[in-house]
């Protein structure tokens, strides 16, 4: 089964949750690096959503252009 595409809202939710966990110190030190890497990827994903064209949109525009 194809994994459902991550939405901006879902990414934001995950980020909020992780930020809360880190603020509350609910993260095991061993997990910190993994969590941070995950957060970094999510942040980049959200920033890209805001500032870059989606691949499918780009394709559409290319087809039209």
């Amino acid at each position, binding site marked *: 089964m194809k994994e459902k595409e991550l939405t901006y809202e879902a990414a934001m939710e995950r980020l909020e949750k992780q*930020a809360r966990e880190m603020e509350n*110190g609910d993260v095991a030190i061993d997990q910190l690096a993994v969590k*941070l890497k995950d957060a970094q990827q999510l942040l980049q994903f959200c920033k890209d959503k805001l500032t870059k064209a989606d691949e499918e949109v780009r394709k559409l525009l290319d087809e039209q252009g």
Partner: protein
Amino acid sequence: MLESSIDEEYWVEGEFADASVGFGGHFYGEMVQKDEQGRNIVARARVTCWARNYNIISLRFQKETGETLRRGLHVKLLVKVTFHEQYGYALNILDVDSSFTLGDMARRRKEILAQLQQDGIINDNKELPLPSLLKHIAVVSSAGAAGYGDFCDQLEQNDYGLFFHHHLFPAVMQGTNVEESVMTALAAIADEADCWDCVVIIRGGGATGDLSDFDSYPLAAAVAQMPIPVIVGIGHERDETVLDFVAHVRVKTPTAAAAFLIDNGVQQLSRLDDIQNRMIQGVSLLCERQQRYIEQLTVRLTSAPSKLLLTEQHHLEILQNRHMQAARFMLQNAKLQLQNLETRYVALDPVLQLKRGFSLTYTADGQLLRSTKDLHYGEPLITRLADGTVKSEVTQ
């Protein structure tokens, strides 16, 4: 002759069944009064307004109501009855009451809103959640309008590097076709609603067209029932349309609509920054706490053995003291014993007894004489004194 007989000025209320500006800038129109149901015309009159006066009152009217003197508009006019042999009788417009038209438009809007309320759809669009990400924008506007161009420019040249994908669904934004045209565009968007984050309905900036074209129940109902949030930017500086009441977001101008979208994106960016900062702070806090914990552990770990040593040392000291005391006691005891022995030994020393005057007497065979019983007459005896021996004989 007739003119002189009806010289007075009258206020008349009605609807323009026809209205146009003719050659020379004069205004010509027809005014009608309809029955209670608004279906049948019960009175009709030709109206005119000379260019000079029309320029003054139409400008003022437009400024005050945002409307032009057009067909379909309800107005209250100050008129004077005139008669021309060639054109017949007409009402010459001297003035127009802006507040009457404003009131009429407000009443109409109120009726539409009441109907929307009654149908339970007035808040449908407003209650839709506004997506955090407003990126794919379906625009309803007229392609050539300056306002649409401004909207696109502003979106594309935003200072924050935000990307928007906007697509125009062209519609007539002025005149009697507004309702049908905008509704067609909305229907097309609704068909592919999952491709769009929101709809933006904008009208050319600075257009002074008739706002009341948007005061339509079917149009308002269509906006209210759009499956995605609608942003309207068709309002007027002072005035509003029913769409402003049903749309998710209402703004004044197309640029304001673009500003809203950009602002939303900027808020999202700052939200991301905020999350990032919170995480950094959280991590440093976590590390600090862990560091403190390690320090505490270190202190505990280092202090524990030294405490242990100290106790042990103390224990040793006590033991040492006990040993010392015991030794001292034993020595003293031994010394006393020795002294005792010495005293006893001194008391037993025979040399000492001899010096004191005691003597030891032996028989000739060397036996120590202890009793007189074994002695015989003439038996030689040897007596030992302190400083030598004496030989003697038993004579008695």
